[in-house]
């Protein structure tokens, strides 16, 4: 069984982004870029499925600028066998990405697509579900446990108030939550090996997909700042302030 894992290149988790002074967006020039953390979990899960003999091949794919090739090399260093980039400089929104991924799924015919539940830049949380809808496949979002057996996958999902387990007929879509696994450290020999793996580049035009954005960002601004608070010397003062100043007790 083939497993397809889409990965996104995003501003690194540890970078605190700054809004540009002209409010046209956030300043991502010269900031560290990394693989979206949820996607790293997805690559790790697919790799483990291959190591268990459940998956036969893991294919990492990405959509975006040419530098996404670095992200794909990281995916291959974790364990993906080969990669494909849909290269474009157009701003890609989740619906467009889902359509590009559908085209790749049609070509590769995987039984399972594992994606991150959301990207930490646009925080949209849409692509996996949209891809499932376009393919008319079942989906299990926010996965904390994935178990493939026969022609079905059983997934435990993190939902409000606890956990839920669903069973999906393959082919299916799974999106990862934080605690599905802990991605391995990438070793130098594996980074070297990843450089020799195949990385195909295609364009949205070659796939016949219209990726024009549907949502226009009019401006990007700073969130309202909280006014600075005070330090209190002891618990008694804290309780007094909460009662008489904030009036929340």
């Amino acid at each position, binding site marked *: 069984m083939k497993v397809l894992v889409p990965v996104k290149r995003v501003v690194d*988790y540890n970078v*605190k*982004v700054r809004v540009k002074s002209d409010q046209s967006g*956030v300043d991502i020039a010269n900031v560290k870029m990394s693989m979206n953390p*949820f996607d790293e979990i997805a690559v790790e899960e697919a790799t483990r499925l291959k190591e268990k003999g459940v998956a036969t091949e893991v294919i990492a794919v990405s959509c975006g600028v040419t530098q996404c090739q670095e992200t794909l090399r990281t995916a291959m260093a974790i364990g993906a066998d080969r990669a494909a980039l849909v290269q474009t400089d157009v701003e890609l929104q989740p*619906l467009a990405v*889902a359509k590009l991924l559908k085209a790749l799924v049609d070509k590769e015919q995987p039984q399972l697509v594992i994606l991150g*539940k959301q990207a*930490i830049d646009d*925080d*949209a*949380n*849409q*692509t996996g*579900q*949209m891809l*499932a*809808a376009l393919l008319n496949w*079942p*989906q299990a*979002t*926010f996965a*904390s446990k994935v178990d493939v057996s026969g022609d079905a996958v*059983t997934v435990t999902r993190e*939902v*409000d*108030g*606890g*956990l*839920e*387990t*669903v*069973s*999906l*007929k393959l082919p*299916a879509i799974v999106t990862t939550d*934080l*605690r599905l696994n802990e991605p391995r450290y990438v070793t130098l020999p594996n980074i070297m090996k990843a450089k020799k793996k195949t990385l195909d580049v295609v364009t949205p035009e070659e796939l016949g997909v219209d990726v024009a*954005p*549907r*949502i*226009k*960002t*009019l*401006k*990007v*601004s700073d*969130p309202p700042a*909280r006014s600075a*608070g*005070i*330090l209190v010397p*002891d*618990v*008694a003062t*804290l309780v007094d302030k*909460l009662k008489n100043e*904030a009036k*929340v*007790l």
Partner: protein
Amino acid sequence: MTILVIAEHDNAHLKAATLNTVAAAQKIGGDIHVLVAGNGAQAVAEQAAQAAGVAKVLLADGPALAEGLAENVAEQVLAVAGDYSHILFPATAAGKNVAPRVAARLDVAQLSDIISVESNDTFTRPIYAGNAIATVQSSDAVKVITVRTTAFDGVAAQGGSAAVESVAAASDSGLSSFVGREVAKSDRPELAGAAVVVSGGRGLGSAENFKILDPLADKLGAALGASRAAVDAGYAPNDWQVGQTGKIVAPQLYVAVGISGAIQHLAGMKDSKVIVAINKDAEAPIFGVADYGLVADLFTAVPELVNAL
């Protein structure tokens, strides 16, 4: 212009998140209809009919909708989507699961997690863990939206008198099936909608030590939350996580105990009305957002606080 709001419920009770979503719909303007998709969910439909501002309730009642499977619920929404200009879901686990499926099938973009309504096609939403706010405009004919519930005060649960209309229930897709659910039983309020939240971080040191927060939460009638560090370390269950990728909360009072305040955590709680931080590290970033900070050892400060309340 008519707006469809998808109800959040457990087949017996309408969840408060629905009322917040109706409030967002009121800001857009126009008639508001609520879809209750469930099984044996007549009582939910009646509750929705009483919510202020609701003009009509659509009840789709059938076994395929019992467990809220995304495939079936999305089909149900699409079956009634008809002429609605906006389709709104609360940005809960259930809403986030279904909404993009509906949007993709309608070939429209989705606006996730809106925090304000600027006009009927323009909204604001947080990006980069709330470190920036984007004002976005949709050019699609139908706007599929998820609503950050903490950003909108819910409409009154009583006072409305909408008609309940039954609609044909979707059949089972045959693609997925429900296996089971483990829901933690708790007498405490639900984290996402609680008026007071007490959250613990890595400073608690162990799952055993985490229990020091119980009496404080009891005294304050609070829900318990946790930072990602505390959840990853196994001190607290997954669904207690507050932050960018966990629950977003905005209670009247948020008490952060032993939490350093990573930006991803702040993203989930910085809209709280009053924030209290207790941490022994005076340099912890949590003090940058706290209204009241107490630099102290939590293991002495928390019991002292419980006694003082």
